[in-house]
Protein backbone atom coordinates (compact mmCIF):
# COMPACT_ATOMS: atom_id res chain seq x y z
CA UNK A 1 0.00 0.00 0.00
CA UNK A 2 1.13 3.48 -0.74
CA UNK A 3 1.79 5.84 2.06
CA UNK A 4 -0.44 8.55 0.65
CA UNK A 5 -3.52 6.37 1.02
CA UNK A 6 -4.28 8.14 4.26
CA UNK A 7 -4.27 11.56 2.72
CA UNK A 8 -7.50 12.43 0.98
CA UNK A 9 -9.05 15.72 0.10
CA UNK A 10 -10.57 17.30 3.13
CA UNK A 11 -14.13 17.24 1.77
CA UNK A 12 -13.72 13.61 0.79
CA UNK A 13 -12.32 12.91 4.17
CA UNK A 14 -15.44 14.18 5.86
CA UNK A 15 -17.83 12.02 3.90
CA UNK A 16 -15.64 8.95 3.97
CA UNK A 17 -15.16 9.24 7.67
CA UNK A 18 -18.89 9.37 8.19
CA UNK A 19 -19.39 6.23 6.13
CA UNK A 20 -16.97 4.47 8.40
CA UNK A 21 -18.59 5.75 11.57
CA UNK A 22 -21.95 4.48 10.47
CA UNK A 23 -20.49 1.10 9.89
CA UNK A 24 -18.38 0.36 12.91
CA UNK A 25 -17.91 2.53 15.95
CA UNK A 26 -14.60 0.93 16.77
CA UNK A 27 -12.57 -2.27 16.65
CA UNK A 28 -14.66 -3.99 19.31
CA UNK A 29 -17.82 -3.48 17.30
CA UNK A 30 -16.11 -4.74 14.17
CA UNK A 31 -14.90 -7.86 15.98
CA UNK A 32 -18.36 -8.56 17.41
CA UNK A 33 -19.77 -8.21 13.93
CA UNK A 34 -17.26 -10.68 12.52
CA UNK A 35 -17.96 -13.18 15.32
CA UNK A 36 -21.71 -13.00 14.73
CA UNK A 37 -21.47 -13.08 10.98
CA UNK A 38 -19.37 -16.25 11.09
CA UNK A 39 -21.35 -17.74 13.98
CA UNK A 40 -18.19 -18.20 15.96
CA UNK A 41 -18.03 -19.15 19.60
CA UNK A 42 -17.06 -16.02 21.45
CA UNK A 43 -15.61 -18.05 24.32
CA UNK A 44 -13.31 -19.89 21.94
CA UNK A 45 -12.53 -17.44 19.16
CA UNK A 46 -10.55 -19.04 16.34
CA UNK A 47 -7.94 -16.33 16.43
CA UNK A 48 -6.38 -16.82 13.01
CA UNK A 49 -9.75 -16.73 11.23
CA UNK A 50 -10.82 -13.60 13.06
CA UNK A 51 -7.44 -11.92 12.60
CA UNK A 52 -7.47 -12.57 8.86
CA UNK A 53 -10.97 -11.24 8.45
CA UNK A 54 -10.21 -8.22 10.58
CA UNK A 55 -7.13 -7.37 8.57
CA UNK A 56 -9.04 -7.88 5.33
CA UNK A 57 -11.62 -5.41 6.47
CA UNK A 58 -8.96 -2.84 7.31
CA UNK A 59 -7.31 -3.45 3.97
CA UNK A 60 -10.62 -2.86 2.26
CA UNK A 61 -11.06 0.38 4.15
CA UNK A 62 -7.64 1.47 2.99
CA UNK A 63 -8.42 0.57 -0.61
CA UNK A 64 -11.53 2.68 -0.40
CA UNK A 65 -9.34 5.49 0.87
CA UNK A 66 -11.17 5.59 4.17
CA UNK A 67 -9.43 7.09 7.13
CA UNK A 68 -8.79 4.43 9.70
CA UNK A 69 -8.88 5.50 13.33
CA UNK A 70 -5.81 4.63 15.36
CA UNK A 71 -7.76 2.26 17.58
CA UNK A 72 -8.40 -0.09 14.64
CA UNK A 73 -4.68 -0.37 14.06
CA UNK A 74 -3.90 -0.93 17.72
CA UNK A 75 -6.40 -3.77 17.72
CA UNK A 76 -4.82 -5.23 14.59
CA UNK A 77 -1.49 -5.50 16.34
CA UNK A 78 -3.15 -6.89 19.47
CA UNK A 79 -4.74 -9.62 17.35
CA UNK A 80 -1.45 -10.44 15.70
CA UNK A 81 0.21 -10.59 19.06
CA UNK A 82 -2.40 -12.97 20.44
CA UNK A 83 -2.08 -15.08 17.34
CA UNK A 84 1.67 -15.43 17.73
CA UNK A 85 1.32 -16.13 21.45
CA UNK A 86 -1.06 -18.97 20.65
CA UNK A 87 1.46 -20.44 18.29
CA UNK A 88 4.11 -20.60 20.98
CA UNK A 89 4.35 -23.88 22.82
CA UNK A 90 3.43 -23.33 26.45
CA UNK A 91 6.61 -24.17 28.25
CA UNK A 92 6.34 -24.85 31.95
CA UNK A 93 7.98 -21.87 33.53
CA UNK A 94 9.41 -21.56 37.00
CA UNK A 95 7.93 -18.15 37.70
CA UNK A 96 4.36 -18.88 36.78
CA UNK A 97 2.62 -21.13 39.19
CA UNK A 98 -0.64 -22.66 38.09
CA UNK A 99 -2.36 -22.17 34.78
CA UNK A 100 -1.27 -19.54 32.40
CA UNK A 101 -4.09 -17.39 31.11
CA UNK A 102 -5.37 -17.91 27.61
CA UNK A 103 -3.88 -15.08 25.52
CA UNK A 104 -7.40 -14.39 24.23
CA UNK A 105 -8.93 -14.00 27.68
CA UNK A 106 -8.76 -10.22 28.01
CA UNK A 107 -10.04 -9.62 24.51
CA UNK A 108 -12.96 -11.98 25.13
CA UNK A 109 -13.82 -10.19 28.36
CA UNK A 110 -13.74 -6.84 26.63
CA UNK A 111 -15.96 -8.06 23.81
CA UNK A 112 -18.51 -9.49 26.23
CA UNK A 113 -18.50 -6.31 28.24
CA UNK A 114 -18.81 -4.13 25.16
CA UNK A 115 -21.78 -6.17 23.98
CA UNK A 116 -23.53 -5.37 27.26
CA UNK A 117 -23.18 -1.64 26.77
CA UNK A 118 -24.21 -1.87 23.15
CA UNK A 119 -27.42 -3.52 24.36
CA UNK A 120 -27.79 -0.93 27.11
CA UNK A 121 -27.37 1.86 24.53
CA UNK A 122 -30.08 0.21 22.49
CA UNK A 123 -32.32 0.14 25.55
CA UNK A 124 -31.73 3.87 26.15
CA UNK A 125 -32.61 4.55 22.54
CA UNK A 126 -35.90 2.72 22.96
CA UNK A 127 -37.16 4.01 26.28
CA UNK A 128 -39.31 7.12 26.41
CA UNK A 129 -37.23 10.21 25.92
CA UNK A 130 -38.35 13.63 27.03
CA UNK A 131 -38.57 15.87 24.01
CA UNK A 132 -39.08 12.93 21.67
CA UNK A 133 -41.75 10.67 23.15
CA UNK A 134 -42.92 12.55 26.20
CA UNK A 135 -42.92 16.28 26.64
CA UNK A 136 -42.62 18.28 29.79
CA UNK A 137 -45.49 20.53 30.73
CA UNK A 138 -44.13 23.43 32.64
CA UNK A 139 -45.96 26.66 33.27
CA UNK A 140 -43.76 29.70 33.23
CA UNK A 141 -45.05 32.48 35.41
CA UNK A 142 -43.16 35.50 34.20
CA UNK A 143 -44.66 37.92 36.70
CA UNK A 144 -42.85 36.32 39.60
CA UNK A 145 -39.58 38.04 40.00
CA UNK A 146 -36.97 36.16 41.96
CA UNK A 147 -36.52 37.67 45.36
CA UNK A 148 -33.04 38.50 46.54
CA UNK A 149 -33.33 38.19 50.27
CA UNK A 150 -33.74 34.44 50.57
CA UNK A 151 -31.02 31.87 50.87
CA UNK A 152 -30.69 30.41 47.44
CA UNK A 153 -29.75 26.92 46.49
CA UNK A 154 -26.88 27.26 44.12
CA UNK A 155 -27.24 25.10 41.10
CA UNK A 156 -24.21 25.13 38.92
CA UNK A 157 -22.02 22.37 37.64
CA UNK A 158 -18.23 22.22 37.81
CA UNK A 159 -18.19 21.94 34.05
CA UNK A 160 -20.03 25.25 33.73
CA UNK A 161 -17.47 26.85 36.02
CA UNK A 162 -14.50 25.79 33.96
CA UNK A 163 -16.30 26.64 30.73
CA UNK A 164 -16.87 30.14 32.07
CA UNK A 165 -13.16 30.42 32.83
CA UNK A 166 -12.31 29.16 29.38
CA UNK A 167 -14.55 31.71 27.75
CA UNK A 168 -12.75 34.47 29.67
CA UNK A 169 -9.43 33.12 28.51
CA UNK A 170 -10.57 32.89 24.92
CA UNK A 171 -11.44 36.57 24.93
CA UNK A 172 -8.10 37.81 26.14
CA UNK A 173 -4.78 37.75 24.39
CA UNK A 174 -2.07 35.31 25.31
CA UNK A 175 0.42 37.84 26.69
CA UNK A 176 -2.25 39.11 29.04
CA UNK A 177 -2.50 35.79 30.68
CA UNK A 178 -0.29 32.86 31.27
CA UNK A 179 -1.37 29.27 31.31
CA UNK A 180 -2.75 28.00 34.56
CA UNK A 181 -0.96 25.00 35.92
CA UNK A 182 -2.04 22.24 38.22
CA UNK A 183 0.62 23.29 40.70
CA UNK A 184 -0.82 26.75 40.98
CA UNK A 185 -4.17 25.28 41.94
CA UNK A 186 -2.73 23.18 44.72
CA UNK A 187 -0.67 26.22 45.71
CA UNK A 188 -3.92 28.15 45.92
CA UNK A 189 -5.11 25.66 48.55
CA UNK A 190 -2.04 26.37 50.66
CA UNK A 191 -2.23 30.10 50.25
CA UNK A 192 -5.91 30.05 51.06
CA UNK A 193 -5.18 28.07 54.23
CA UNK A 194 -2.30 30.23 55.44
CA UNK A 195 -4.31 33.39 54.93
CA UNK A 196 -7.22 31.90 56.87
CA UNK A 197 -4.88 31.06 59.73
CA UNK A 198 -3.78 34.68 59.72
CA UNK A 199 -7.37 35.83 59.92
CA UNK A 200 -7.96 33.74 63.01
CA UNK A 201 -4.81 34.92 64.76
CA UNK A 202 -2.94 38.12 64.22
CA UNK A 203 0.34 36.30 63.82
CA UNK A 204 1.42 32.71 63.74
CA UNK A 205 4.68 31.01 64.51
CA UNK A 206 6.43 29.91 61.36
CA UNK A 207 6.42 26.23 62.28
CA UNK A 208 2.66 26.29 63.00
CA UNK A 209 2.10 26.42 59.29
CA UNK A 210 3.57 22.97 58.97
CA UNK A 211 1.72 21.21 61.77
CA UNK A 212 -0.75 19.56 59.42
CA UNK A 213 1.94 18.38 57.02
CA UNK A 214 2.61 14.72 56.69
CA UNK A 215 4.89 14.43 53.71
CA UNK A 216 7.99 16.18 52.48
CA UNK A 217 5.96 17.45 49.54
CA UNK A 218 3.47 19.08 51.89
CA UNK A 219 6.23 20.87 53.76
CA UNK A 220 7.85 22.07 50.56
CA UNK A 221 4.53 23.21 49.11
CA UNK A 222 3.68 25.15 52.26
CA UNK A 223 7.10 26.73 52.31
CA UNK A 224 6.69 27.77 48.69
CA UNK A 225 3.27 29.17 49.54
CA UNK A 226 4.84 31.35 52.26
CA UNK A 227 7.46 32.61 49.81
CA UNK A 228 4.80 33.28 47.20
CA UNK A 229 2.76 35.28 49.70
CA UNK A 230 5.83 37.33 50.64
CA UNK A 231 6.54 38.00 47.00
CA UNK A 232 2.96 39.12 46.47
CA UNK A 233 3.31 41.36 49.52
CA UNK A 234 0.52 39.63 51.36
CA UNK A 235 2.45 38.71 54.48
CA UNK A 236 5.47 39.69 56.52
CA UNK A 237 8.03 37.47 58.16
CA UNK A 238 9.40 38.73 61.44
CA UNK A 239 12.23 37.48 63.63
CA UNK A 240 12.79 39.58 66.76
CA UNK A 241 16.24 38.24 67.57
CA UNK A 242 18.78 35.96 66.05
CA UNK A 243 17.75 32.30 66.53
CA UNK A 244 14.40 33.40 67.94
CA UNK A 245 11.12 32.06 66.61
CA UNK A 246 10.07 33.29 63.23
CA UNK A 247 6.63 34.86 63.12
CA UNK A 248 4.33 35.46 60.22
CA UNK A 249 1.80 38.25 60.11
CA UNK A 250 -0.53 39.55 57.47
CA UNK A 251 1.03 42.41 55.55
CA UNK A 252 -2.05 44.43 56.30
CA UNK A 253 -3.83 43.98 59.58
CA UNK A 254 -7.21 42.34 59.82
CA UNK A 255 -9.04 45.25 61.47
CA UNK A 256 -8.14 47.34 58.46
CA UNK A 257 -9.62 44.67 56.25
CA UNK A 258 -12.83 44.65 58.20
CA UNK A 259 -13.43 48.35 58.00
CA UNK A 260 -12.98 48.19 54.29
CA UNK A 261 -15.03 45.05 53.89
CA UNK A 262 -17.98 46.68 55.59
CA UNK A 263 -18.55 49.17 52.84
CA UNK A 264 -18.44 46.54 50.21
CA UNK A 265 -15.47 46.05 48.07
CA UNK A 266 -13.79 49.40 47.70
CA UNK A 267 -10.09 49.65 48.34
CA UNK A 268 -9.83 52.80 50.38
Amino acid sequence: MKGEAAITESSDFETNYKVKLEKFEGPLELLLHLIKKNELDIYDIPISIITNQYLQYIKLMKELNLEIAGEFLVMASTLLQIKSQMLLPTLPSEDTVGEEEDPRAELIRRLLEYQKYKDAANMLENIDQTGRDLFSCRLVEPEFEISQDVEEIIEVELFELIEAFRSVLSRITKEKFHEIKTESISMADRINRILSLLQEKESIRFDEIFTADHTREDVIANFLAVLELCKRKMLKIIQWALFADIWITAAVREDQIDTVAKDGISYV
Partner: protein
Amino acid sequence: MSDIKPMVEALIFVSEAPLTIERLCDILAEYKREEIRSAINDLKNDYNNIERGIFLAEIAEGFQFRTRKEYSEIVRRLTKNTGARFSKPALETLAIIAYRQPITRPEIEYLRGVDSGGVLKTLLEKNLVRILGKKNIPGKPIIYGTSRKFLETFNLRDLKGLPTLKEIQELEETPIFEKQNELPLQNN
Protein backbone atom coordinates in the same frame (compact mmCIF):
# COMPACT_ATOMS: atom_id res chain seq x y z
CA MET B 1 -61.43 18.34 52.21
CA SER B 2 -58.41 20.60 52.37
CA ASP B 3 -57.09 22.74 49.57
CA ILE B 4 -53.71 21.06 49.56
CA LYS B 5 -54.24 19.14 46.30
CA PRO B 6 -54.56 22.23 44.08
CA MET B 7 -51.52 23.73 45.80
CA VAL B 8 -49.43 20.69 45.04
CA GLU B 9 -50.75 20.68 41.48
CA ALA B 10 -49.82 24.32 40.94
CA LEU B 11 -46.39 23.86 42.51
CA ILE B 12 -45.48 20.87 40.38
CA PHE B 13 -46.57 22.69 37.24
CA VAL B 14 -44.47 25.74 37.98
CA SER B 15 -41.34 23.99 39.20
CA GLU B 16 -38.51 23.83 36.72
CA ALA B 17 -37.05 20.61 38.08
CA PRO B 18 -39.03 17.60 39.27
CA LEU B 19 -40.41 18.56 42.66
CA THR B 20 -39.43 16.24 45.49
CA ILE B 21 -41.56 15.43 48.51
CA GLU B 22 -38.88 17.08 50.69
CA ARG B 23 -39.16 20.29 48.72
CA LEU B 24 -42.95 20.20 48.91
CA CYS B 25 -42.78 19.68 52.67
CA ASP B 26 -40.50 22.72 52.97
CA ILE B 27 -42.79 24.92 50.94
CA LEU B 28 -46.01 23.66 52.49
CA ALA B 29 -44.57 23.64 56.00
CA GLU B 30 -48.04 24.01 57.56
CA TYR B 31 -49.05 20.58 56.24
CA LYS B 32 -47.99 17.12 57.31
CA ARG B 33 -45.89 14.94 55.11
CA GLU B 34 -48.65 12.32 54.91
CA GLU B 35 -51.14 14.92 53.72
CA ILE B 36 -48.77 15.96 50.95
CA ARG B 37 -48.13 12.32 50.03
CA SER B 38 -51.82 11.59 49.77
CA ALA B 39 -52.44 14.76 47.73
CA ILE B 40 -49.82 13.55 45.25
CA ASN B 41 -51.48 10.16 45.07
CA ASP B 42 -54.87 11.76 44.48
CA LEU B 43 -53.41 13.90 41.71
CA LYS B 44 -51.76 10.89 40.14
CA ASN B 45 -55.10 9.12 40.07
CA ASP B 46 -56.93 12.15 38.70
CA TYR B 47 -54.55 12.34 35.78
CA ASN B 48 -54.25 8.63 35.26
CA ASN B 49 -56.94 8.57 32.63
CA ILE B 50 -56.78 8.05 28.90
CA GLU B 51 -59.07 11.06 28.47
CA ARG B 52 -56.28 13.22 29.80
CA GLY B 53 -53.44 14.53 27.64
CA ILE B 54 -50.92 14.57 30.47
CA PHE B 55 -49.96 12.52 33.50
CA LEU B 56 -48.00 12.92 36.70
CA ALA B 57 -44.65 11.17 36.36
CA GLU B 58 -42.13 10.30 39.03
CA ILE B 59 -38.78 11.50 37.75
CA ALA B 60 -35.40 12.07 39.40
CA GLU B 61 -36.94 11.36 42.80
CA GLY B 62 -39.50 14.08 42.26
CA PHE B 63 -42.73 14.75 40.41
CA GLN B 64 -43.26 16.35 37.06
CA PHE B 65 -46.06 16.40 34.50
CA ARG B 66 -45.49 14.82 31.11
CA THR B 67 -47.62 14.47 27.99
CA ARG B 68 -49.03 10.99 27.47
CA LYS B 69 -47.20 8.80 25.05
CA GLU B 70 -50.36 8.32 22.96
CA TYR B 71 -50.11 11.93 21.87
CA SER B 72 -46.40 12.14 21.19
CA GLU B 73 -46.92 12.21 17.44
CA ILE B 74 -49.39 15.10 17.71
CA VAL B 75 -47.15 17.06 20.08
CA ARG B 76 -44.20 16.52 17.76
CA ARG B 77 -46.17 18.37 15.08
CA LEU B 78 -46.13 21.39 17.37
CA THR B 79 -42.53 21.17 18.53
CA LYS B 80 -41.29 20.14 15.08
CA ASN B 81 -39.12 17.53 16.72
CA THR B 82 -38.01 14.87 14.30
CA GLY B 83 -37.48 12.10 16.76
CA ALA B 84 -33.95 10.73 16.87
CA ARG B 85 -31.91 12.71 19.34
CA PHE B 86 -28.78 10.83 20.28
CA SER B 87 -26.03 9.45 18.11
CA LYS B 88 -24.87 5.89 18.59
CA PRO B 89 -21.57 6.92 20.23
CA ALA B 90 -23.45 9.26 22.55
CA LEU B 91 -25.85 6.53 23.66
CA GLU B 92 -23.05 4.03 24.09
CA THR B 93 -21.02 6.44 26.22
CA LEU B 94 -24.10 7.40 28.24
CA ALA B 95 -24.89 3.75 28.86
CA ILE B 96 -21.35 3.06 30.06
CA ILE B 97 -21.38 6.08 32.36
CA ALA B 98 -24.85 5.24 33.68
CA TYR B 99 -23.92 1.66 34.54
CA ARG B 100 -20.31 2.08 35.61
CA GLN B 101 -20.25 5.46 37.35
CA PRO B 102 -18.12 6.90 38.86
CA ILE B 103 -15.91 6.35 35.85
CA THR B 104 -12.89 8.05 34.25
CA ARG B 105 -12.32 8.83 30.59
CA PRO B 106 -9.60 6.15 30.12
CA GLU B 107 -11.98 3.60 31.59
CA ILE B 108 -14.76 4.62 29.20
CA GLU B 109 -12.35 4.37 26.30
CA TYR B 110 -11.14 0.98 27.43
CA LEU B 111 -14.72 -0.28 27.46
CA ARG B 112 -15.70 1.30 24.14
CA GLY B 113 -12.39 0.65 22.47
CA VAL B 114 -12.35 4.12 20.91
CA ASP B 115 -11.44 7.68 21.82
CA SER B 116 -14.40 9.25 23.61
CA GLY B 117 -13.22 12.78 24.42
CA GLY B 118 -15.47 14.50 21.91
CA VAL B 119 -18.59 12.57 22.91
CA LEU B 120 -17.87 13.18 26.55
CA LYS B 121 -17.54 16.91 25.94
CA THR B 122 -20.87 16.98 24.10
CA LEU B 123 -22.57 15.09 26.90
CA LEU B 124 -21.09 17.52 29.45
CA GLU B 125 -22.31 20.47 27.39
CA LYS B 126 -25.77 18.95 27.20
CA ASN B 127 -25.67 18.53 30.97
CA LEU B 128 -26.42 14.83 30.71
CA VAL B 129 -23.11 13.95 32.30
CA ARG B 130 -21.41 15.75 35.15
CA ILE B 131 -17.96 15.95 36.66
CA LEU B 132 -18.13 14.23 40.02
CA GLY B 133 -14.60 15.07 41.12
CA LYS B 134 -11.24 13.45 40.75
CA LYS B 135 -10.15 9.93 41.40
CA ASN B 136 -7.60 9.50 44.11
CA ILE B 137 -5.10 7.60 42.01
CA PRO B 138 -1.90 8.83 40.35
CA GLY B 139 -2.71 11.41 37.72
CA LYS B 140 -5.95 12.26 39.53
CA PRO B 141 -8.23 11.70 36.52
CA ILE B 142 -11.64 13.38 36.43
CA ILE B 143 -14.51 11.09 37.30
CA TYR B 144 -17.83 11.34 35.53
CA GLY B 145 -21.36 10.40 36.39
CA THR B 146 -24.85 10.94 35.05
CA SER B 147 -26.80 14.06 36.01
CA ARG B 148 -30.34 14.85 37.04
CA LYS B 149 -30.95 15.95 33.47
CA PHE B 150 -30.13 12.40 32.42
CA LEU B 151 -32.91 11.08 34.66
CA GLU B 152 -35.27 13.77 33.36
CA THR B 153 -34.43 12.98 29.77
CA PHE B 154 -34.97 9.26 30.11
CA ASN B 155 -37.91 9.66 32.48
CA LEU B 156 -36.34 7.71 35.28
CA ARG B 157 -37.17 7.93 38.95
CA ASP B 158 -33.56 7.15 39.86
CA LEU B 159 -30.69 5.08 38.50
CA LYS B 160 -32.25 1.98 40.01
CA GLY B 161 -35.08 2.60 37.57
CA LEU B 162 -32.78 1.44 34.78
CA PRO B 163 -33.11 -2.23 33.92
CA THR B 164 -30.05 -4.18 35.03
CA LEU B 165 -27.56 -5.22 32.39
CA LYS B 166 -28.68 -8.78 32.94
CA GLU B 167 -32.32 -7.89 32.31
CA ILE B 168 -31.34 -6.10 29.13
CA GLN B 169 -29.44 -9.11 27.88
CA GLU B 170 -32.42 -11.33 28.50
CA LEU B 171 -34.54 -8.95 26.43
CA GLU B 172 -31.96 -8.74 23.68
CA GLU B 173 -31.68 -12.51 23.65
CA THR B 174 -27.96 -12.67 23.53
CA PRO B 175 -27.59 -15.79 25.66
CA ILE B 176 -23.97 -16.39 24.79
CA PHE B 177 -23.01 -13.37 26.80
CA GLU B 178 -24.78 -14.46 29.89
CA LYS B 179 -22.44 -15.05 32.73
CA GLN B 180 -19.78 -12.42 32.46
CA ASN B 181 -18.93 -10.60 35.65
CA GLU B 182 -18.28 -6.90 35.53
CA LEU B 183 -15.01 -6.20 33.79
CA PRO B 184 -12.47 -4.87 36.25
CA LEU B 185 -11.11 -1.50 35.20
CA GLN B 186 -7.96 -1.11 37.31
CA ASN B 187 -5.66 -2.70 34.78
CA ASN B 188 -5.52 0.03 32.20
